[in-house]
């Protein structure tokens, strides 16, 4: 909300510089920015009147203007075509700081002789004042602009920009902000006058109020003013509304808006003659009831939306907007002025459902006190009489079915100490801060001593956010300032340990993948259906992803059921960045729907490798990443977790049918790895021939991870013996089977594949695998004979098992 400083100053002296004031308000919880007026730098520029206009003796197109600025009359040369005698204008004396109308740069006005005639100043255009770009003529001010007033004061739009938290609806008003300023600076803010002359005829003779929905409208007041003359508002009123950011409409509506800005209580003015049968009915809308608001839009309503109606028809959408059928017109002479207290939640729902949020609804939805309505109606009636004339009927129609009890709260010294950690805020800090009672009184609370160490307090009528002792404590703390609260280390008991093994595993896996040279990425949980399709993550047999009911875009519409799509998109982008090549992973959640429950959020880690092994450019021979690079990463990570992974041939839509493996631990599938299917590579526009990929479900893996990932095994210090052996095997025999067989021998400590050869010199359908075997016994040094014997029996059984023979 824009709070013009000039308006604020009507209620409270502004003792602090505006920037400091804005800071103090912000610290007290009202986020405030000072916006200086555009005109702040002009210097001697005043509202003037053109008292005489003469021809310039030496120039046809120039004239001599005599301008009065109150006590002083000056003569200037002026070339503007629109200048006329009697106009109120902006007059700059020499020394004024203006904008050069030709160059647009700042300049200081000096004395000048124009065609032989001395000019004692200047009649300014908008552009020269920096107020706009118009330079076709001078700026003409309204006829009631006070002559001699510094233009800066007259036109000033210097204001505080206030952003209130939802509990402080009272500060959506100039008076509310003034009260905060008063509390901060220690100056009481008096109540504005609510008096006006009332006629003899009682208001009850003109209108009757009936509340049919007391839970949605706790109070409804109506004043009646007869014989008004609807027309433009006086200049000062228009000026204030504009400064606060509202458009002037007419003197009656402007008066209601003025009081809304002043008090924070929205009001509405009806043309009394449009209220049929002299009765206001506050009722819920009927299902499907149609109503046209004064902006001309027809709405279809549903209960419990609230209407202001007469016995025949609805005339306003309560708390949101008036109706087209009862608004003020030029012909209106009698006004029914409404001031009411509506249920904030209902107003909020209505405004949201009709997509019709107004100045009124944003104030009502924060919850307003019913006493406020009673004051605001009198204030507005007073103002209408002043701006639109007419005569007020006697009294106010006031339907107030359930006035609540006074909101009395107890503030104790011990409660304050318990919550804040110090009694100083209750007692006051000599020389720095007053005690709680004084602070609360300055905020408008009624305060009574309640025994030695407690107060009984009643919040002021404009506050609807004070319900419990803690709220009162905050009031004191925010005004005194949290700088006055000491800092005290936490003491007492240490909490019980809460472990989350899945989270810990995920973080450990992230570290291990980074150790393995992989870059972590984090992507959006909401993704487009297309991305899911591209990653083949939707379709028969796959979970149907949850959809956002109000997605931000098509690209962020579904809760991902797989990390694959985002990962491959990220990879594609990375590959386009020179020098290309990337090893990336993401560890994050996927969301698998469950009926009538929150989705199963599974922790998945997926990675992709593309490009060449080693990015060194000055040494040759780097190969592209392939299946076995992904496998190496997976093996290393699982081994470091203390797990023994096995790999089985498998199928996966995303992956190359011949280059896919299921990762299993203790016989349970925990993930998959492989090279991307060429079609997938093409879909994602991956600019490489091969992409190695892996994916592990940490939820499945986690229970299998041993508590101790490392168990020390005693090692033999006895010498070992190496034997190299080249085996000829059928191409169909997996190397893993041969290796496992060799490893199973009790005397074999280690088996390493050091050569794999296919091709020339080998029988068709055969390949050669060369292993180095390390033999060692824990019992004693092995003799050459023992090793040879072990070796030959091993090879014999290997041949029987796999058909492998010694390569000649």
């Amino acid at each position, binding site marked *: 909300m824009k709070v013009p400083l000039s308006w604020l100053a009507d209620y409270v002296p502004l003792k602090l510089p505006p920037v400091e004031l804005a800071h103090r308000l912000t610290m007290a919880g009202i986020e405030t920015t000072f916006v200086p007026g555009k005109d702040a730098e002009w210097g001697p520029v005043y509202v003037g009147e053109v008292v005489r206009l003469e021809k310039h003796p030496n120039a046809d197109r120039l004239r001599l203007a005599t301008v009065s600025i109150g006590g002083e009359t000056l003569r200037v040369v002026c070339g503007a075509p629109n200048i006329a005698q009697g106009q109120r204008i902006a007059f700059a004396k020499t020394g004024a700081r203006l904008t050069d109308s030709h160059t647009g740069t700042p300049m200081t006005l000096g004395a000048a002789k124009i065609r032989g005639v001395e000019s004692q100043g200047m009649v300014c255009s908008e552009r020269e004042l920096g107020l706009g770009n118009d330079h076709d003529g001078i700026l003409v001010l309204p006829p009631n602009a006070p002559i001699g007033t510094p233009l800066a004061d007259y036109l000033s739009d210097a204001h505080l920009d206030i952003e209130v938290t939802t509990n402080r609806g009272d500060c959506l008003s100039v008076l509310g902000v003034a009260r905060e300023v008063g509390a901060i600076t220690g100056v009481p803010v008096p109540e504005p006058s609510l008096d006006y002359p009332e006629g003899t005829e009682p208001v009850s003779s003109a209108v009757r109020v009936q509340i049919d929905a007391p839970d949605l409208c706790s109070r409804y007041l109506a004043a009646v003013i007869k014989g008004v003359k609807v027309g433009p508002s006086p200049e000062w009123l228009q000026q204030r509304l504009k400064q606060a950011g509202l458009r002037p409409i007419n003197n009656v509506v402007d008066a209601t808006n003025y009081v809304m800005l002043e008090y924070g209580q929205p009001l509405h003015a009806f043309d009394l003659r449009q209220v049929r049968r002299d009765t206001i009915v506050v009722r819920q809308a009927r299902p499907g009831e149609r109503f046209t608001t004064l902006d001309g839009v027809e709405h279809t309503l549903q209960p419990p939306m609230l209407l202001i109606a007469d016995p025949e028809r609805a005339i306003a959408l309560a708390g949101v907007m008036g109706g087209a059928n009862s608004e003020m017109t030029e012909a209106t002479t009698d006004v029914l002025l409404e001031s009411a207290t509506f249920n904030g939640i209902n107003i909020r729902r209505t405004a949201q459902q009709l997509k019709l949020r107004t100045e009124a609804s944003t104030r009502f939805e924060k919850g307003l006190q019913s006493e406020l309505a009673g004051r605001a109606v009198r204030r507005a009636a007073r103002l209408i009489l002043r701006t639109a004339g007419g005569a007020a009927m006697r009294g106010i129609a006031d339907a107030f079915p359930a006035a609540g009890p006074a909101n009395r709260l107890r503030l104790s010294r011990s409660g304050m100490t*318990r919550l804040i950690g110090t009694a100083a805020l209750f007692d006051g800090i000599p020389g720095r801060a007053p005690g709680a009672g004084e602070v609360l009184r300055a905020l408008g609370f009624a305060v009574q001593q309640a025994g030695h160490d407690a107060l009984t307090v009643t919040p002021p009528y404009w506050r609807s956010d004070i319900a419990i002792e*803690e709220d009162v404590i905050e009031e004191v703390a925010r005004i005194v300032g949290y700088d006055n609260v000491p800092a005290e280390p*936490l*003491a007492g008991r240490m909490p019980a340990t809460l472990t989350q093994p899945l989270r810990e595993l995920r973080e450990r896996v992230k570290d291990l993948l980074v150790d393995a040279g992989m870059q972590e990425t984090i992507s959006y949980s909401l993704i487009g259906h297309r991305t899911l399709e591209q990653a083949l993550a939707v379709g028969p047999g796959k979970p149907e992803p949850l959809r956002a009911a109000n997605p931000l875009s098509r690209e962020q519409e579904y809760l991902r059921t797989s990390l694959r799509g985002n990962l491959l998109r990220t990879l594609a982008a990375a590959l386009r960045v020179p020098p290309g090549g990337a090893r990336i992973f993401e560890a994050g959640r996927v969301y698998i729907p469950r009926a009538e429950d929150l989705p199963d959020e599974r922790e998945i880690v997926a990675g992709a490798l593309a490009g060449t092994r080693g990015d060194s450019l000055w040494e040759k021979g780097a190969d592209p990443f392939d299946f076995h690079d992904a496998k190496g990463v997976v093996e290393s990570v699982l081994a470091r977790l203390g797990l023994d992974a096995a790999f089985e041939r498998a199928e996966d839509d995303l992956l190359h049918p011949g280059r896919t493996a299921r990762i299993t631990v203790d016989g349970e599938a925990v993930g998959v790895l492989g090279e991307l299917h060429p079609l997938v590579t093409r879909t994602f526009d991956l600019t490489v021939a091969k992409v190695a990929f892996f994916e592990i479900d940490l939820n499945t893996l986690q229970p299998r991870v041993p508590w101790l990932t490392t168990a020390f095994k005693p090692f033999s210090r006895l010498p070992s013996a190496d034997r190299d052996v080249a085996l000829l095997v059928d191409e169909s025999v997996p190397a893993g089977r041969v290796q496992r067989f060799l490893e199973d021998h009790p005397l074999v400590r280690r088996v390493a594949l050091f050569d794999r050869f296919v091709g020339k010199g080998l029988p068709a359908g055969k390949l050669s695998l060369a292993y180095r075997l390390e033999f060692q016994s824990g019992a004693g040094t092995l003799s050459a004979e023992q090793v040879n014997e072990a070796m030959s029996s091993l090879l014999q059984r290997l041949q029987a098992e796999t058909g492998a023979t010694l390569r000649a």
Partner: protein
Amino acid sequence: MTTSAFADLNALRDAATRELDAAVDAAALEAWRVAYLGRSGKITGVLRGIAAVPADQRRVFGAAANEIKVALEQRFEARQADLERGALSALASDAIDITLPGRPVDMGRLHPTTIVIREICGIFQSMGFQVVEGPEVEWDKYNFEALNIPKDHPARDKWDTIWVDANKDVEGRFTTLLRTHNSPMQARVMETNQPPIRVVVPGKCFRYEATDATHESQFFQVEGLVVDEGVSFANLKHTLYEFARRLFGGDRKVRFRCDFFPFVEPGVDMSIDCFKCGGRDPACRICRGSGWIEIMGAGMVHPNVLRNVGYDPARVSGFAFGMGPERIAMLKYGIDDIRLFYANDIRFLRQF
């Protein structure tokens, strides 16, 4: 015979000396050692052949032969040392171009959000906090209602919500949402644990919000909660002050201003003094000249929140806080656009 044996011995010594002096590399030297001093070398042979020397001369002969052997051994060692010195001095000319790039060891990196979350959690862990995570898809009940934000409460405007098109209540309103903050874990932790509670909750949240340089629809938060008997605002102040000093430097100042969150009372937000300009630069990109940077919201847990989980607000009290690790990363690393975090541009990621 004896004379000639002595003469042979001398000739052998002379030849050995000559050949030793002629050896120019390690291989020649080794060949010489084998030829003369080895197990079947010539000098060894002479000593072994001492049996052929007449008994009365054996002592003299043996002594002479041994003397020669020792002399040759010393000469051999000296020669060996000479040659090594020569070889070492030649190393200087066996130079490589040390300005060639090292063979790259491609090290992976964590995402900056992970780095900052771990840093934040690490500081709180050192103060006795436990780290826990909660679901990212939440019930309205935990995200709002348990936190003293009933349906249709205007404070909900602060958390523009992405709803999940799944479960609905009797009024036909969605009950499942993408959590808008990590605060639902306050209720979840308290429901299943008894005080004392000291937790930090890192995790992803979502808002229905158009993105720009400072707003994202997906971001992370680290939420914190302390509940015990006798926990006060003074404890909040100390804990968060301590945290700020550890994260941003020991000479940091902090400031608390009043703010409103329905689940705390009083509510504040905490600023630190600008570590970049100290408030001296009106054009500072970090604090915009104010000298202060807001880094988190906090407050004393609202009695309704305690009551909602069955705690007795007359017996226990607590404080809660929440901060955005991206914002902290932006401050620490000088990142000027939050959208960089989850766009995953490799040129961004590999800087951390």
